[in-house]
Protein backbone atom coordinates (compact mmCIF):
# COMPACT_ATOMS: atom_id res chain seq x y z
CA UNK A 1 0.00 0.00 0.00
CA UNK A 2 2.99 2.31 0.35
CA UNK A 3 3.12 2.48 -3.46
CA UNK A 4 -0.46 3.76 -3.57
CA UNK A 5 0.35 6.35 -0.93
CA UNK A 6 3.43 7.43 -2.85
CA UNK A 7 1.43 7.80 -6.05
CA UNK A 8 -1.29 9.79 -4.25
CA UNK A 9 1.28 12.08 -2.63
CA UNK A 10 2.98 12.66 -5.99
CA UNK A 11 -0.36 13.40 -7.65
CA UNK A 12 -1.30 15.87 -4.91
CA UNK A 13 2.08 17.56 -5.20
CA UNK A 14 1.87 17.73 -9.00
CA UNK A 15 -1.63 19.22 -9.08
CA UNK A 16 -0.84 21.71 -6.32
CA UNK A 17 2.39 22.73 -8.04
CA UNK A 18 0.66 23.21 -11.38
CA UNK A 19 -2.09 25.17 -9.69
CA UNK A 20 0.37 27.52 -8.03
CA UNK A 21 3.15 27.87 -10.59
CA UNK A 22 1.80 27.64 -14.13
CA UNK A 23 0.25 30.67 -15.86
CA UNK A 24 -3.43 30.84 -16.75
CA UNK A 25 -6.22 31.15 -14.21
CA UNK A 26 -8.53 28.55 -15.73
CA UNK A 27 -5.77 25.97 -15.69
CA UNK A 28 -5.06 26.83 -12.06
CA UNK A 29 -8.69 26.36 -11.05
CA UNK A 30 -8.95 23.05 -12.93
CA UNK A 31 -5.83 21.86 -11.13
CA UNK A 32 -7.30 22.93 -7.81
CA UNK A 33 -10.35 20.77 -8.49
CA UNK A 34 -8.13 17.80 -9.35
CA UNK A 35 -6.18 18.49 -6.17
CA UNK A 36 -9.42 18.33 -4.18
CA UNK A 37 -10.24 14.92 -5.65
CA UNK A 38 -6.75 13.59 -4.85
CA UNK A 39 -7.11 14.91 -1.31
CA UNK A 40 -10.42 13.06 -0.99
CA UNK A 41 -8.60 9.84 -1.88
CA UNK A 42 -5.90 10.67 0.66
CA UNK A 43 -8.57 11.10 3.35
CA UNK A 44 -9.89 7.66 2.50
CA UNK A 45 -6.38 6.23 2.88
CA UNK A 46 -6.01 7.97 6.24
CA UNK A 47 -9.27 6.40 7.47
CA UNK A 48 -11.25 9.64 7.58
CA UNK A 49 -14.34 8.86 5.46
CA UNK A 50 -16.40 11.78 6.80
CA UNK A 51 -13.72 14.22 5.72
CA UNK A 52 -13.42 12.45 2.37
CA UNK A 53 -17.14 12.89 1.67
CA UNK A 54 -17.09 16.56 2.59
CA UNK A 55 -13.88 17.20 0.65
CA UNK A 56 -15.16 15.50 -2.50
CA UNK A 57 -18.38 17.53 -2.43
CA UNK A 58 -17.07 20.86 -1.19
CA UNK A 59 -13.35 20.96 -1.90
CA UNK A 60 -13.53 19.61 -5.43
CA UNK A 61 -17.06 20.40 -6.52
CA UNK A 62 -18.45 23.49 -4.86
CA UNK A 63 -15.24 25.51 -4.49
CA UNK A 64 -14.21 24.77 -8.06
CA UNK A 65 -17.60 25.67 -9.48
CA UNK A 66 -17.64 28.83 -7.37
CA UNK A 67 -14.26 29.89 -8.75
CA UNK A 68 -15.27 29.07 -12.31
CA UNK A 69 -18.54 31.00 -11.97
CA UNK A 70 -16.66 34.01 -10.63
CA UNK A 71 -14.11 33.79 -13.44
CA UNK A 72 -16.94 33.62 -15.94
CA UNK A 73 -18.11 37.05 -14.74
CA UNK A 74 -14.75 38.60 -15.60
CA UNK A 75 -13.93 39.77 -19.13
CA UNK A 76 -11.44 37.82 -21.21
CA UNK A 77 -8.59 40.24 -20.50
CA UNK A 78 -8.83 39.45 -16.82
CA UNK A 79 -8.98 35.69 -17.15
CA UNK A 80 -5.61 35.09 -18.78
CA UNK A 81 -3.05 36.75 -16.67
CA UNK A 82 0.33 37.48 -18.08
CA UNK A 83 2.79 34.64 -17.54
CA UNK A 84 5.77 36.95 -17.07
CA UNK A 85 4.21 38.73 -14.13
CA UNK A 86 2.61 35.84 -12.44
CA UNK A 87 4.13 32.58 -13.56
CA UNK A 88 7.36 31.16 -12.26
CA UNK A 89 9.20 34.10 -10.69
CA UNK A 90 12.70 35.02 -11.72
CA UNK A 91 14.17 34.64 -8.29
CA UNK A 92 13.83 30.92 -8.50
CA UNK A 93 16.95 29.92 -6.58
CA UNK A 94 16.27 31.78 -3.32
CA UNK A 95 12.65 30.70 -3.44
CA UNK A 96 13.58 27.06 -3.89
CA UNK A 97 15.95 27.31 -0.97
CA UNK A 98 13.22 28.97 1.08
CA UNK A 99 10.72 26.24 0.21
CA UNK A 100 13.17 23.50 1.14
CA UNK A 101 14.07 25.24 4.39
CA UNK A 102 10.44 25.69 5.42
CA UNK A 103 9.70 22.09 4.45
CA UNK A 104 12.55 20.70 6.50
CA UNK A 105 11.63 22.72 9.54
CA UNK A 106 7.95 21.86 9.28
CA UNK A 107 8.64 18.18 8.76
CA UNK A 108 10.88 18.06 11.78
CA UNK A 109 8.23 19.85 13.79
CA UNK A 110 5.47 17.54 12.57
CA UNK A 111 7.40 14.37 13.35
CA UNK A 112 8.21 15.65 16.80
CA UNK A 113 4.57 16.41 17.62
CA UNK A 114 3.18 14.67 20.66
CA UNK A 115 0.03 12.73 19.91
CA UNK A 116 -2.35 13.28 22.76
CA UNK A 117 -5.43 11.41 21.55
CA UNK A 118 -8.86 11.62 23.09
CA UNK A 119 -10.04 8.20 21.92
CA UNK A 120 -10.93 6.79 25.31
CA UNK A 121 -12.61 9.95 26.61
CA UNK A 122 -14.85 10.07 23.54
CA UNK A 123 -15.62 6.37 23.77
CA UNK A 124 -16.76 6.67 27.38
CA UNK A 125 -19.00 9.65 26.59
CA UNK A 126 -20.50 8.17 23.42
CA UNK A 127 -23.46 6.32 25.04
CA UNK A 128 -24.71 9.52 26.68
CA UNK A 129 -24.37 11.71 23.61
CA UNK A 130 -27.42 10.56 21.65
CA UNK A 131 -25.61 9.49 18.49
CA UNK A 132 -23.75 6.28 17.79
CA UNK A 133 -21.18 7.58 15.33
CA UNK A 134 -18.32 9.33 17.11
CA UNK A 135 -17.84 12.17 14.63
CA UNK A 136 -21.55 13.07 14.58
CA UNK A 137 -21.71 12.89 18.36
CA UNK A 138 -18.70 15.18 18.59
CA UNK A 139 -20.07 17.66 16.07
CA UNK A 140 -23.53 17.96 17.54
CA UNK A 141 -23.22 17.17 21.20
CA UNK A 142 -19.77 16.85 22.75
CA UNK A 143 -18.25 19.83 20.96
CA UNK A 144 -21.46 21.38 19.68
CA UNK A 145 -20.18 24.88 20.31
CA UNK A 146 -17.70 24.43 17.44
CA UNK A 147 -20.54 23.63 15.08
CA UNK A 148 -22.57 26.54 16.42
CA UNK A 149 -19.70 28.94 15.77
CA UNK A 150 -19.12 27.45 12.36
CA UNK A 151 -22.76 27.98 11.34
CA UNK A 152 -22.39 31.52 12.64
CA UNK A 153 -19.29 32.04 10.51
CA UNK A 154 -21.19 30.88 7.44
CA UNK A 155 -24.10 33.16 8.26
CA UNK A 156 -21.66 36.06 8.66
CA UNK A 157 -20.18 35.18 5.26
CA UNK A 158 -23.65 35.30 3.71
CA UNK A 159 -24.35 38.64 5.41
CA UNK A 160 -21.05 40.05 4.15
CA UNK A 161 -21.76 38.94 0.61
CA UNK A 162 -25.27 40.37 0.72
CA UNK A 163 -23.98 43.72 1.93
CA UNK A 164 -21.63 44.10 -1.02
CA UNK A 165 -23.73 44.35 -4.15
CA UNK A 166 -26.84 43.20 -5.97
CA UNK A 167 -27.02 39.55 -6.91
CA UNK A 168 -25.43 38.67 -10.22
CA UNK A 169 -27.84 36.64 -12.36
CA UNK A 170 -26.66 33.22 -13.47
CA UNK A 171 -25.30 32.61 -16.96
CA UNK A 172 -28.15 31.83 -19.35
CA UNK A 173 -27.20 28.27 -20.14
CA UNK A 174 -30.73 27.33 -21.11
CA UNK A 175 -30.51 29.73 -24.03
CA UNK A 176 -28.28 27.46 -26.05
CA UNK A 177 -28.99 24.14 -24.37
CA UNK A 178 -32.73 24.27 -23.85
CA UNK A 179 -33.36 21.06 -21.96
CA UNK A 180 -30.84 21.69 -19.20
CA UNK A 181 -33.24 23.02 -16.53
CA UNK A 182 -35.48 20.03 -17.16
CA UNK A 183 -32.56 17.68 -16.62
CA UNK A 184 -31.54 19.42 -13.40
CA UNK A 185 -35.10 19.24 -12.04
CA UNK A 186 -35.41 15.65 -13.11
CA UNK A 187 -32.27 14.74 -11.17
CA UNK A 188 -33.22 16.62 -8.04
CA UNK A 189 -35.23 13.79 -6.38
CA UNK A 190 -32.06 11.72 -6.50
CA UNK A 191 -30.19 14.45 -4.65
CA UNK A 192 -32.98 14.58 -2.06
CA UNK A 193 -32.78 10.82 -1.57
CA UNK A 194 -29.01 10.92 -1.14
CA UNK A 195 -29.42 13.81 1.32
CA UNK A 196 -31.85 11.77 3.43
CA UNK A 197 -29.56 8.79 3.18
CA UNK A 198 -26.58 10.70 4.53
CA UNK A 199 -28.67 12.16 7.35
CA UNK A 200 -30.07 8.74 8.23
CA UNK A 201 -26.65 7.14 8.08
CA UNK A 202 -24.94 9.91 10.05
CA UNK A 203 -26.18 8.66 13.40
CA UNK A 204 -24.29 5.38 13.21
CA UNK A 205 -21.75 5.59 10.36
CA UNK A 206 -19.81 8.18 8.34
CA UNK A 207 -22.22 10.78 7.00
CA UNK A 208 -24.26 13.37 8.83
CA UNK A 209 -25.19 16.99 8.42
CA UNK A 210 -22.06 18.26 6.72
CA UNK A 211 -21.75 15.79 3.84
CA UNK A 212 -25.55 15.83 3.43
CA UNK A 213 -25.66 19.61 3.29
CA UNK A 214 -22.73 19.69 0.89
CA UNK A 215 -24.41 17.15 -1.40
CA UNK A 216 -27.81 18.85 -1.48
CA UNK A 217 -25.97 22.14 -1.88
CA UNK A 218 -24.30 20.73 -4.98
CA UNK A 219 -27.70 19.73 -6.37
CA UNK A 220 -29.07 23.16 -5.54
CA UNK A 221 -26.14 24.83 -7.26
CA UNK A 222 -26.95 22.74 -10.31
CA UNK A 223 -30.52 24.07 -10.20
CA UNK A 224 -29.30 27.61 -9.62
CA UNK A 225 -26.76 27.67 -12.45
CA UNK A 226 -29.19 26.19 -14.95
CA UNK A 227 -31.71 28.84 -13.97
CA UNK A 228 -34.29 26.38 -12.69
CA UNK A 229 -35.16 28.13 -9.45
CA UNK A 230 -36.20 31.69 -9.96
CA UNK A 231 -37.63 32.18 -6.48
CA UNK A 232 -34.28 32.77 -4.81
CA UNK A 233 -33.84 35.90 -6.89
CA UNK A 234 -37.32 37.29 -6.32
CA UNK A 235 -38.08 39.96 -3.79
CA UNK A 236 -41.25 38.26 -2.62
CA UNK A 237 -39.40 35.25 -1.23
CA UNK A 238 -36.56 37.20 0.37
CA UNK A 239 -37.97 37.00 3.88
CA UNK A 240 -38.54 33.26 3.59
CA UNK A 241 -34.98 32.82 2.39
CA UNK A 242 -33.64 34.74 5.37
CA UNK A 243 -35.57 32.63 7.86
CA UNK A 244 -34.45 29.41 6.21
CA UNK A 245 -30.84 30.54 6.22
CA UNK A 246 -31.02 31.25 9.93
CA UNK A 247 -32.87 28.03 10.80
CA UNK A 248 -29.80 26.03 11.87
CA UNK A 249 -28.47 28.76 14.12
CA UNK A 250 -31.90 29.42 15.62
CA UNK A 251 -32.45 25.79 16.45
CA UNK A 252 -29.04 25.65 18.11
CA UNK A 253 -29.97 28.63 20.28
CA UNK A 254 -33.36 27.13 21.12
CA UNK A 255 -31.60 23.95 22.20
CA UNK A 256 -29.29 25.95 24.40
CA UNK A 257 -32.24 27.70 26.02
CA UNK A 258 -34.16 24.45 26.46
CA UNK A 259 -31.16 22.94 28.21
CA UNK A 260 -30.95 26.01 30.41
CA UNK A 261 -34.62 25.72 31.34
CA UNK A 262 -34.62 21.98 31.93
CA UNK A 263 -31.41 21.36 33.82
CA UNK A 264 -30.11 24.81 34.67
CA UNK A 265 -26.98 24.71 32.49
CA UNK A 266 -26.58 25.90 28.92
CA UNK A 267 -26.94 22.95 26.53
CA UNK A 268 -27.49 20.70 29.56
CA UNK A 269 -29.94 18.34 27.85
CA UNK A 270 -31.11 15.23 29.69
CA UNK A 271 -29.62 12.20 27.93
CA UNK A 272 -33.00 10.68 27.07
CA UNK A 273 -33.97 13.73 25.00
CA UNK A 274 -30.54 14.30 23.45
CA UNK A 275 -31.18 11.98 20.53
CA UNK A 276 -34.33 13.85 19.38
CA UNK A 277 -32.65 17.22 19.68
CA UNK A 278 -29.68 15.92 17.71
CA UNK A 279 -31.93 14.77 14.89
CA UNK A 280 -33.73 18.12 14.78
CA UNK A 281 -30.48 20.07 14.86
CA UNK A 282 -28.95 17.83 12.23
CA UNK A 283 -31.79 18.37 9.76
CA UNK A 284 -31.92 22.11 10.34
CA UNK A 285 -28.12 22.45 10.12
CA UNK A 286 -27.97 20.47 6.91
CA UNK A 287 -30.73 22.56 5.31
CA UNK A 288 -29.06 25.78 6.39
CA UNK A 289 -25.70 24.63 5.02
CA UNK A 290 -27.39 23.73 1.74
CA UNK A 291 -29.01 27.12 1.36
CA UNK A 292 -25.89 29.00 2.41
CA UNK A 293 -23.77 27.14 -0.13
CA UNK A 294 -26.37 28.07 -2.74
CA UNK A 295 -26.47 31.74 -1.75
CA UNK A 296 -22.69 31.94 -2.10
CA UNK A 297 -23.27 31.62 -5.83
CA UNK A 298 -25.39 34.77 -5.97
CA UNK A 299 -22.34 36.97 -5.19
CA UNK A 300 -24.69 39.56 -3.76
CA UNK A 301 -28.10 40.32 -2.33
CA UNK A 302 -31.07 38.88 -4.18
CA UNK A 303 -34.45 40.51 -4.38
CA UNK A 304 -33.66 43.94 -5.71
CA UNK A 305 -36.17 45.91 -7.74
CA UNK A 306 -35.91 45.13 -11.37
Amino acid sequence: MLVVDLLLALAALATAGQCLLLPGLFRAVANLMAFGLVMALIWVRLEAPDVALAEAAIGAGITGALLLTALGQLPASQRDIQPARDGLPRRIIPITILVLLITGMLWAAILGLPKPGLVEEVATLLPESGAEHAVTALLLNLRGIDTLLEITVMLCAVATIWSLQQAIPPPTLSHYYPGLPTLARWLHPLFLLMFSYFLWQGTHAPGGAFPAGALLGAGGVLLLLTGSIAWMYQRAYNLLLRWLLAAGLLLFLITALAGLLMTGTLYGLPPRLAGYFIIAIEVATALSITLMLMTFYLFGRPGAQQ
Partner: protein
Amino acid sequence: MRELLGAGFILLGIPFFIASTVGLLRFPDVYTRLHALTKVDNVGLGLICLGLAVQASSIAVALKIVLIWGLILLASSTGATLIASSALRHGPPPLRSDSDDSHAGR
Protein backbone atom coordinates in the same frame (compact mmCIF):
# COMPACT_ATOMS: atom_id res chain seq x y z
CA MET B 1 -16.11 -18.22 -10.59
CA ARG B 2 -17.73 -14.82 -10.00
CA GLU B 3 -14.41 -13.44 -8.77
CA LEU B 4 -12.73 -14.58 -11.94
CA LEU B 5 -15.46 -13.16 -14.19
CA GLY B 6 -15.31 -9.83 -12.39
CA ALA B 7 -11.54 -9.67 -12.65
CA GLY B 8 -11.83 -10.46 -16.36
CA PHE B 9 -14.25 -7.56 -16.94
CA ILE B 10 -12.02 -5.18 -14.99
CA LEU B 11 -8.96 -6.24 -16.98
CA LEU B 12 -10.96 -5.73 -20.16
CA GLY B 13 -11.88 -2.20 -19.06
CA ILE B 14 -8.33 -1.00 -18.41
CA PRO B 15 -7.19 -0.85 -22.09
CA PHE B 16 -10.09 1.51 -22.83
CA PHE B 17 -8.86 3.93 -20.18
CA ILE B 18 -5.33 3.74 -21.57
CA ALA B 19 -6.65 4.38 -25.09
CA SER B 20 -8.70 7.35 -23.95
CA THR B 21 -5.72 8.85 -22.13
CA VAL B 22 -3.55 8.38 -25.21
CA GLY B 23 -6.28 10.01 -27.28
CA LEU B 24 -6.52 12.89 -24.83
CA LEU B 25 -2.81 13.50 -25.24
CA ARG B 26 -2.59 12.98 -29.00
CA PHE B 27 -5.73 14.50 -30.47
CA PRO B 28 -5.35 18.01 -31.88
CA ASP B 29 -8.20 20.15 -30.47
CA VAL B 30 -10.82 20.35 -27.74
CA TYR B 31 -13.60 18.71 -29.73
CA THR B 32 -11.68 15.59 -30.75
CA ARG B 33 -10.42 15.21 -27.18
CA LEU B 34 -14.00 15.29 -25.99
CA HIS B 35 -14.73 12.41 -28.35
CA ALA B 36 -12.02 10.40 -26.62
CA LEU B 37 -13.26 11.34 -23.15
CA THR B 38 -16.95 10.65 -23.59
CA LYS B 39 -17.01 7.42 -25.52
CA VAL B 40 -13.92 5.50 -24.56
CA ASP B 41 -13.91 6.42 -20.87
CA ASN B 42 -17.55 5.49 -20.47
CA VAL B 43 -17.10 2.06 -21.94
CA GLY B 44 -13.99 1.45 -19.81
CA LEU B 45 -15.83 2.60 -16.70
CA GLY B 46 -18.84 0.50 -17.68
CA LEU B 47 -16.71 -2.63 -17.94
CA ILE B 48 -15.07 -1.93 -14.58
CA CYS B 49 -18.46 -1.29 -12.97
CA LEU B 50 -19.77 -4.50 -14.51
CA GLY B 51 -16.82 -6.40 -13.06
CA LEU B 52 -17.44 -4.90 -9.61
CA ALA B 53 -21.17 -5.58 -9.86
CA VAL B 54 -20.55 -9.22 -10.70
CA GLN B 55 -18.35 -9.50 -7.62
CA ALA B 56 -20.81 -7.64 -5.37
CA SER B 57 -22.25 -9.36 -2.32
CA SER B 58 -25.94 -8.59 -2.93
CA ILE B 59 -28.25 -7.43 -5.70
CA ALA B 60 -28.71 -4.00 -4.13
CA VAL B 61 -24.96 -3.35 -4.14
CA ALA B 62 -24.71 -4.46 -7.77
CA LEU B 63 -27.60 -2.18 -8.73
CA LYS B 64 -25.96 0.68 -6.85
CA ILE B 65 -22.78 0.26 -8.88
CA VAL B 66 -24.81 0.21 -12.10
CA LEU B 67 -26.63 3.35 -10.94
CA ILE B 68 -23.28 5.05 -10.39
CA TRP B 69 -22.28 4.13 -13.93
CA GLY B 70 -25.50 5.55 -15.34
CA LEU B 71 -25.08 8.82 -13.48
CA ILE B 72 -21.49 9.20 -14.65
CA LEU B 73 -22.65 8.48 -18.20
CA LEU B 74 -25.23 11.24 -17.94
CA ALA B 75 -22.77 13.67 -16.36
CA SER B 76 -20.04 13.07 -18.89
CA SER B 77 -22.22 13.31 -21.97
CA THR B 78 -23.98 16.46 -20.76
CA GLY B 79 -20.68 17.95 -19.67
CA ALA B 80 -19.09 17.17 -23.03
CA THR B 81 -21.84 19.04 -24.86
CA LEU B 82 -21.61 21.99 -22.50
CA ILE B 83 -17.83 22.18 -22.84
CA ALA B 84 -18.10 21.92 -26.61
CA SER B 85 -20.70 24.67 -26.93
CA SER B 86 -18.79 26.92 -24.55
CA ALA B 87 -15.59 26.30 -26.52
CA LEU B 88 -17.49 27.10 -29.70
CA ARG B 89 -18.56 30.45 -28.28
CA HIS B 90 -15.33 31.58 -26.65
CA GLY B 91 -12.55 29.46 -28.08
CA PRO B 92 -11.19 28.45 -31.45
CA PRO B 93 -13.53 26.83 -34.00
CA PRO B 94 -13.10 23.14 -34.74
CA LEU B 95 -10.38 22.14 -37.15
CA ARG B 96 -11.74 20.87 -40.40
CA SER B 97 -10.13 19.26 -43.36
CA ASP B 98 -12.41 20.75 -45.97
CA SER B 99 -15.29 23.14 -45.51
CA ASP B 100 -18.39 21.81 -47.15
CA ASP B 101 -20.64 22.96 -44.34
CA SER B 102 -18.66 25.83 -42.97
CA HIS B 103 -21.28 27.72 -40.94
CA ALA B 104 -22.86 24.75 -39.26
CA GLY B 105 -21.43 25.32 -35.82
CA ARG B 106 -21.63 29.08 -35.49
